[in-house]
């Protein structure tokens, strides 16, 4: 035992008075507080989302998602550098990836949430100084960040490509940069809204497959309703129908904030914002409630 000296001193110090080669050492260093716990749990969750520190099997799906996300961006950059026309805007990129993002969420949110419920490791978390609500927030933040990073990486690639391809000089570059920031912002809105809907849904089940099905179902089940309302409803119904779906809410928000035309929302822009804020607040509150109730 390399620590024989230290352990004997320790043995005497804590009154045992016996020297054993087992050499148990007391911990006298710092015990960090709440912010550190949440931060460590958040980082751990973020790593887990991308399969880092886990088996090769757990890396497959995040790997596919990353390749796909960057693939679309590479194609967009290539087209732009050849034709000098913007084939995919920063906003369109996030919209185009909404289905892959949904699948990514359906895998990652249950990965972070259902696994802990199933293995009952929450007993170990909650018998530590970590608060239940802090656990829920750290998990949600990890999922939101994972989605945002998955969008922001390719957006950065598109910006770098676009900055070289654009022909407007310094002002063109500045314009490109503000577009890029707007794209990052929209990606963040997307990540927050989708995450705040998906994570509480995943926490309803301790089985990953069930969690995934609930998430995909929640996003897809309203799609035909929106289709029908847009088809047969009047102009007002058409402008309000997308509110039934989180992706629709985000599209409406994009139209209102960035003045694009993916949807027709009329004067209901503020309503889209209100619904988005409500979805996030309800998601956080629901998650907090869920973990207050969970038995350990």
């Amino acid at each position, binding site marked *: 035992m390399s620590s024989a000296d230290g352990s004997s001193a320790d*043995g005497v110090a*804590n*009154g*045992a008075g*016996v020297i*054993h080669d*087992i050499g*148990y*050492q*007391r*911990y006298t*260093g*710092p*015990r*960090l*507080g*709440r912010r*550190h*716990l949440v931060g*460590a*749990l958040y980082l*751990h969750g973020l790593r887990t989302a991308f399969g880092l*520190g*886990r*088996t090769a099997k*757990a890396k497959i799906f995040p790997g596919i998602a990353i390749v796909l996300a960057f693939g679309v961006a590479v194609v967009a950059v290539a087209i732009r550098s050849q034709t000098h026309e913007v084939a995919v805007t920063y906003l369109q990129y996030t919209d185009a990836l909404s289905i892959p993002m949904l699948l990514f969420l359906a895998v990652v949110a249950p990965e972070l949430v259902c*696994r*802990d419920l199933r*293995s*009952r*490791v929450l*007993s*170990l*978390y*909650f*018998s*530590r*100084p*970590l*608060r239940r609500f802090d656990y829920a927030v750290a998990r949600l933040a990890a999922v939101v960040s994972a989605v945002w990073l998955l969008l922001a990486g390719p957006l950065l690639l598109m910006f770098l490509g676009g900055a070289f391809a654009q022909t407007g000089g310094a002002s063109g570059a500045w314009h490109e940069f503000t577009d890029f920031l707007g794209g990052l912002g929209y990606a963040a809105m997307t990540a927050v809204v989708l995450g705040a809907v998906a994570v509480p849904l995943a926490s309803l089940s301790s089985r990953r497959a069930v969690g995934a099905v609930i998430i995909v179902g929640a996003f897809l089940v309203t799609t035909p309703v929106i289709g029908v309302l847009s088809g047969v409803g009047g102009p007002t119904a058409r402008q309000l129908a997308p509110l039934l779906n989180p992706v629709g809410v985000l599209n409406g928000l994009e139209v209102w904030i960035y003045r694009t035309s993916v949807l027709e929302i009329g004067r209901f822009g503020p309503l889209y914002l209100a619904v988005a804020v409500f979805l996030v607040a309800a998601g956080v509150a629901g998650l907090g409630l869920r973990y207050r109730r969970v038995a*350990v």
Partner: protein
Amino acid sequence: MLPIQTRSLTKRYPQVTALDALTVDVEAGIVGLVGANGAGKSTLIKILLGLLEPNEGSVLVLGMDPARQGEAVRARVGYMPEHGCLPPDMVAAEFVTHMARMSGLPRTAARERASEALRHVGLYEERYRQIGGYSTGMRQRVALAQALVHDPELLLLDEPTNGLDPAGRDGMLELIHRIGSEFGISVLVCSHLLGEVERICESLVAIDAGRLLRADRIDSMTRRRDVLVVEVDEGVPQLHDRLVELGLDVRRAGVGLLVPLASDDTFDLVMKAVAALDLPLHRLEQRRHGIAELFADRPKEAGHVLG
């Protein structure tokens, strides 16, 4: 300072009263908490951790009230649940490191102490393997390592030998004994198997239906209570009556008689009685009174602290 003190602690669920005016002082060292399944052991542990609030009464853990200072208590207590609680697809070393960080240890210290904790529980060689590939005994050791990793002052172990084979059981008990006696950490071991905790504990708290049966040091429970087992091939009733006449507190137990060993004279008294009745003596044996029999002797002395 006593690690745990409770005063008329009561916890009621809609259907059942899990703890009923439990008043007990738990001393430092290794203390066994015994009781049948459903006696209230796990409820008590959850109250000690501040995960449940009692309906009445008060409790102090390491001098703090877990209901109000839950986080401070949980920072200094290690808990090993009764059920499986480990994520199968994580590597043991990384899992225990993560749990150390969740107790507030900085990254480097967490990693070092996780290695140390896994070494103490005998998993140093296997620490980079996935928990899912471990045997039940190894998993229990990981659960113990995560309870130990942040250097708690008090360990709460809920049925730590659950699901282990006899060898694994012995290993786990030996480990707990070492933690309590050499590491300077107080340990509360919950078990429904008295024979197990009796082997490693210095004192014992027995509860039944949420009430205290008895709390005492093991040696004082057994010291005055050695018995003589007397077996004769025939004439048991005559011998019984004879010994009663001699003023001994004789009890029938199976085929034999149990005589409390008051002094060395008891041997002679019994021998002479057997000889006088001319009975074929089959066995005369001094036996340490099993603690299980002690509890069987004292039905429902609730709320009474001996010693």
